[in-house]
């Protein structure tokens, strides 16, 4: 359908919006985010690398390093890859950074839009399925090298526990147990978590485990940035529990990181 007018325009009363989603509202005005490539890219774009999620006693935790690379260049040192998506869930990105950040913004708006219109939040299952659909919509570009692979986690208000989801490039959605990783340093982080993760970790232990897994990844993967205490660069970490999403402050991570670097072989 070609939109009759583009732009935000005036308030529209009673317009028929298919399935009521915010993306459909954008599409009806020709404002949906779109990337078109006529041929594969010749120069590399900034990419976000290692992110991980794990369960702990009170819920789930999600962490990511801060480096973005474009080919062999470090494009950004302080990129954020972990974002709260609403009060009870968080999403982390790996892949083409520019696209991923826009998709997350759209995902956040979509969840809030649904909640306001319906007067109730989507279920965690519903949120993860919607995210899978967004990734699937991106398949054609993925084959041209513009890949976006997120991790999603949240507190399931129905099941009353934290849950993790990983995805693949065709929008396959996988319900993960205990921990999940993605990105170029993901394999390294995963093998670290495999040997160190335990059930019912406390908050401090879970934070330390996440930070150390990222450090382990950064030691093996050039595209993953380790913490830089001198410049004040720490991983971004978000926890989700019955009380909702909480972003862990840098001050807290500074102590955790320093202690780990001290003891690491």
């Amino acid at each position, binding site marked *: 359908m070609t939109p009759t007018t583009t732009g935000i325009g005036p308030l529209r*009363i009673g317009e028929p919006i298919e399935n009521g989603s915010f993306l459909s509202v954008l599409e009806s005005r020709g404002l949906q985010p779109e990337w078109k490539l006529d041929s594969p890219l010749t120069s590399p774009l900034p990419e976000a690398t290692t992110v991980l999620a794990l369960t702990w006693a009170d819920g789930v935790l999600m962490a990511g390093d801060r480096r973005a690379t474009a080919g062999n260049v470090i494009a950004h040192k302080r990129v954020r890859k972990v974002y709260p998506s609403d009060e009870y869930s968080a999403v982390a990105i790996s892949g083409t950074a520019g696209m991923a950040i826009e998709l997350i913004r759209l995902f956040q708006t979509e969840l809030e*839009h649904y909640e*306001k219109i319906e007067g109730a939040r989507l279920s965690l299952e519903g949120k993860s399925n919607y995210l899978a659909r967004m990734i699937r919509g991106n398949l054609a570009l993925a084959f041209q090298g513009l890949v976006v692979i997120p991790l999603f986690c949240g507190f399931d208000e129905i099941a009353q526990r934290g849950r993790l989801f990983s995805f693949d490039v065709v929008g396959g959605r996988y319900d993960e147990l205990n921990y999940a990783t993605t990105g170029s340093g993901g394999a390294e982080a995963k093998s670290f978590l495999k040997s160190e993760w335990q059930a019912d970790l406390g908050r401090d232990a879970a934070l330390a485990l996440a930070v150390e897994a990222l450090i382990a990844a950064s030691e093996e993967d050039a595209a993953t940035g380790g913490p830089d205490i001198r410049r004040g660069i720490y991983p971004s970490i978000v926890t989700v529990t019955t009380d909702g999403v909480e972003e862990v402050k840098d001050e807290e991570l500074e102590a955790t990181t320093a202690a780990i670097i001290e003891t690491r072989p």
Partner: protein
Amino acid sequence: MTTPFYVPPEQLVKDRADFARKGVSRGRPIVVLQLKVGILLIGENPSPSLRKIGEIYDRIAFAGVGRFNEFETLRVAGIRYADLKGYSYARTDVTGKSLANAYSQTLGQIFSHEIKPYEVDIVVAEVGQELSEDKLFRVQFDGTLRDADRFVVLGAGEEPIAERISTSLNTEMSLDEAVALAADSITHVEEREIGTSEWETGFLERSAERRAFRRLNPTELESALDS
């Protein structure tokens, strides 16, 4: 060919306004109060699912009386408008003023062009960082847009309720005191008891960092009504 009857425009507008006013004045009242702690929206609503008060954006709330399907249409259109603006530009660019203006344009258009005007009366409330930055807009069925100060009363018994509130309202009041004042004014004018579960509330909390809108939970509401 038959010639249509001539109806003078004054008569047409008057008939439409009378019709809409009649519909609105049957609606159960809603009170919006400006306080130091935030903005309270409260009204009687026996239905727990068909809402009259709702969140539009970070610091903006909506309340409507009249025909449910009509103000619900306006509420949904408002959310779409606000989310589109916030997504296209930035969250801080979504303002109550532009939303109230959009509502006013739309209702004005419907009043003069559609077969029947909307039978609604709505409020757009925006809580600022400071009390002086708060905005209370009232938009009526014909698109009349007014900027209210301190409080707004919509629906049946508007005048006597407003009179009671204006004498006792004080911005220094706590949320509990404000709930009690609004509930007391409405029950007094309506001359009947209203159960705790029959109140619908919305509160824009001034100190909130992002989404300021929340509803009072049953225990909060009960203790406020008892105070």
